[in-house]
């Protein structure tokens, strides 16, 4: 039986004739699955493009392609990896007008062009991001529509563009960046407070929260008619936001067998304070584990993560330098540490320090993927099988919007092709990748996304 939902039919009705790929709405089941998988989407961003040693040697499938030196940490999950080359931020034009780090980061998930003329202090003008477009289709299905996480403990530099470009990859709409949580304790609290089936005391708390929100709504509704028209519009925004939160508080939580709750991290780090024993590596591991917790407990199915902000000056001096060759990397020279990434990005792409930081980013991706691969998720499938972990940067090297380093892990429930390296030379649009995700992995009927021109059949099962 076809598992077309009412939503698919409603969404599809207007455009069905124009869509040659309606068959993609037919659910694709992973090995041994008998129900439609719950697809998770985890876009992960890293800043400033990549050093050399990112690209695999030659395109191929299965045994015919090999991971590159920087991607080597993905070895245990290689069979779930697809690396893409010559994916471009086409919204910026063929060569791009030399946009700065901020816009190229802000548009990484939107496929839109961030307005260069926006006021540096404002929120800017962008587009909806792919994770938020997917989250819209899941409203009510999970306690949290989505989570936005990051690791930057600095108020990073914004290149004189709206800081939201540099610090937010998730955009609810063109003018609403969603700000990320950095503090592991705050992330934990957000997951737990969402009233997933983790905490038995949660039910009472939910009732209390709802009664408070009811009061807030009643109070604002009574004040609103006494205001002038502009103020009434402001109060409208307020009421909408409160009502949305109330809906979320009232949303039923689902029970999921693989839920693996953690205890509250003992350790806090934010843009205003980091502990004396702060370690970015520990921080990253904690956040990755919290992502696994949120996904396995079905608190949310959409999590975006910024491994660092667009142009952070964070010193990666906790990292021991590695030496890179065409075939791999080895520790050393002994005693040498990495420094800040923006410094590297101003040097040469073969800089081993730069490659080491990128290698470390990939190792955190690998940690996430390995954990997801270890969690059963219905039938023979693992949670990684049913996920789409998107990993990349908004530029190739500094300020170039073309040939972005990008890859995905997980087939989105058996719907996307994995274990391959595809080179789209001369050019493939980032927005087309997202449109393909939307239609083939997230089973939506959107006709377009960003500046897309069509889906990419090469990656669809």
């Amino acid at each position, binding site marked *: 039986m076809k598992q077309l939902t009412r939503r698919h039919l409603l969404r599809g009705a207007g455009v069905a004739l124009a869509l040659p790929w309606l068959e993609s709405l037919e659910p694709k089941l992973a090995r041994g699955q008998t129900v439609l998988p719950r697809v998770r989407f985890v876009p992960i961003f890293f800043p400033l493009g990549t050093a050399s040693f990112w690209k695999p040697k030659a395109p191929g499938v299965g045994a015919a392609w090999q991971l590159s030196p920087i991607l080597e940490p993905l070895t245990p999950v290689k069979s779930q990896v697809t690396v893409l080359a010559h994916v471009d931020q086409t919204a910026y034009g063929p060569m791009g007008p030399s946009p700065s780090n901020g816009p190229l980061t802000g548009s990484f998930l939107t496929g839109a062009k961030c307005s260069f003329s926006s006021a540096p202090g404002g929120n800017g003008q962008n587009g909806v991001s792919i994770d938020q477009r997917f989250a819209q289709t899941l409203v009510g299905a999970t306690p949290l529509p989505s989570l936005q996480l990051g690791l930057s403990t600095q108020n990073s530099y914004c290149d004189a563009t709206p*800081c939201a470009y540099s610090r937010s990859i998730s955009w609810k709409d063109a003018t609403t960046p969603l700000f990320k949580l950095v503090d592991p304790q705050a992330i934990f609290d957000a997951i737990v407070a969402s009233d997933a089936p983790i905490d038995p005391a949660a039910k009472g708390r939910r009732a209390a929260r709802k009664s408070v929100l009811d009061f807030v709504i009643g109070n604002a509704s009574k004040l609103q008619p006494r205001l002038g028209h502009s103020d009434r519009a402001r109060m409208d925004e307020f009421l909408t*936001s409160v009502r949305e939160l109330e809906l979320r508080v009232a949303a039923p939580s689902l029970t999921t067998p693989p839920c693996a709750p953690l205890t509250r991290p003992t350790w806090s780090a934010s843009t205003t304070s980091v502990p004396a024993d702060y370690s970015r590596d520990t921080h990253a591991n904690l956040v990755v584990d919290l992502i696994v917790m949120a996904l396995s407990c079905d608190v949310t199915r959409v999590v975006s993560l910024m491994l660092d902000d667009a142009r952070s000056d964070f010193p990666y001096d906790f990292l021991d330098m590695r030496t890179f060759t065409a075939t791999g990397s080895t520790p050393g020279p002994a005693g040498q540490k990495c420094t800040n990434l923006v410094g590297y990005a101003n040097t040469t792409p073969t800089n081993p320090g730069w490659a080491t930081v990128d290698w470390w980013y990939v190792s955190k991706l690998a940690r996430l993927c390995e954990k997801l691969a270890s969690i059963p998720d219905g039938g023979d499938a693992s949670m990684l099988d049913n996920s789409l972990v998107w990993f990349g940067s908004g530029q190739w090297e500094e300020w170039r919007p073309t040939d972005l380093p990008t890859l995905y892990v997980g087939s989105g429930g058996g719907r996307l092709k994995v274990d391959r390296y595809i080179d789209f030379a001369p050019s493939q649009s980032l927005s087309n990748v997202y449109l393909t995700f939307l239609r083939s992995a997230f089973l939506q009927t959107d006709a377009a996304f960003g500046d897309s021109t069509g889906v990419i059949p090469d990656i669809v099962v």
Partner: protein
Amino acid sequence: MCRVKQIGTFCRQAPVAETTLEVPLSTLVVRWAVLFALLVGIGLGIGCNAPLAGKLPDGGSSGAAGGAGRVDGAGTAGVQTDAAGAAGMDATVIPPAGDPGWTPIRLLTNFEYDLTVHDLLGVDGPARASFQPDRRENTAYDDVDLVGVDNAVNDSRYEQYFDTADTLVTTAFADPALRARIVTCQPAAAGDQACTLGIVNAFGLRAWRRPLAPDEADGLVALATAALAEGATFNDAIQRVVTAMLSSAPFLYRMEIDPDPTSRAPRALAPYELASRLSYLMWSSTPDDRLLSLAGGGTLARADVLRTEVDRLIDDPRSEGFIEAFGGHWLGADAIASHQVDPVTFPGFYAVGPAMAQELLLFFAELLHGQQSFTGLLDADVNFVNVVLADYYGMSTTGLDATLKRVVNTTDRRKGLLGLGPMLITTSTVTGRTSPFHRGRWILDRLLCEPDPGFGGLIDGIAQDPASTFRARVQAVSADPTCAGCHAAPDTLGLGLEELDAVGVLRATYADGTPVDTRGALPDGTPFAGEAELADLLARDPRFLSCAARQAMRYALEREVDASDELALAKVVATWTSGVPTLRALLEQLVVDQTFRNRRGEGP
């Protein structure tokens, strides 16, 4: 500074000198019309700023979205202003003198939120650290932003408010002493609501900055009653009520509710509205019990009471709120806190950046609390340094330790505000080049209120000829007729500060060994050499005090100072400068002025 925000970046108009007390409105209209025509012409064909031509419409629209407005205020501005612009600036655009202006309801800024919850609960707020950043009003690089007047709530911001209220109130209630400040009684018997009502009204007055309406109080008592019925303790029930108050619109928004929002007739602020304006001006926080009781007693609006209260608020430690939000923001202390430079080229900067911000605040605080003329901002030869900062500045470190101490150092070439780090550093590029253009613009915009002639974007260009000296490369831009209009004045001014490098360190030569030339000139041609001479010149320039008053008025009114305010501003400046122009005297003048004490509805 910019009087008609809705024209966006085009609106720059030269400030009116004090003598314009006698200038009829029609003269202003003509000036605007000429300026507007000029700017439209410039906007069409640009050499120097061509890459930014596309920026202009955006600048205009973001200006129109701005919060506060006058008769043609934000949101509604488009229709009337556009029509007026096309018709050559019809006189109806300019609100009548004496119009107290309309300001919308607005969310607390993150800074205000933190200070307010601290004063209400005794617990530190996390808004500055973790909330969405405040929106900023201005598009131009060197102008001062009106922070947060256009803050908008959205799902994630409201969730932050809600979760934070929950966390803060839980923290406060876990401390018996803090809890006792709110839970001032226990019910005599089950079902006794008098105690609950008393608590609700008392805390409500403080949290919502006005007495609660009976139905509001009843709703909150009902919330407590429901919690008790669910089995909550009395403390927990009150905790829920307090959380609700801190999650509600009357706490989160500064609200001045007009009896008839469609009427533009001026009205005196209600006493509690005045108390809030005063406390958020002077403290960036909620009115204290004394202000609330003066409001309740009906005497707050008296001029003598207002002056006394301004004095009291200044002398209270909470005036830090004013020092940081006004002084720090206007003069760049907050900008330096987030400024980044290449740590490889300037390894020492990150060790002193926070101290530089702190120094500026202490420098400003001395002017707020002292009896000296506000011109000391420019020519007081005072530094606040610790051992690291003194060393960085090249001063003697004798007797210094880790805390900032006041030192008088008349032997170096630094003097006053412009010798401190923030202006020098935040106007420089991250790559370590000074920008005479941005330094000049900063001084013209922020200290003299001399707006730039009108392009939407500011391009900090220098010629790319590597064989030339830095000075020659800057001057090549000013010499280009297409660029001179915007560049000549600021570049010539900023070049005089070249003895202070991109991270605020004195230098005699550039990195390549060529000597630094410190000659500069004011826009009227008055020459000077070096920062200290410029400081003395500016301190004697009457435009400085006039501009300081304009900046303070804009901050106090939380909206642009526009044409109808000119008379009031001129009066404030005249009275202020007739005696020793202390900062305290300026604030007293601004607060007793009708622009601060009155308001009107938005209009139909």
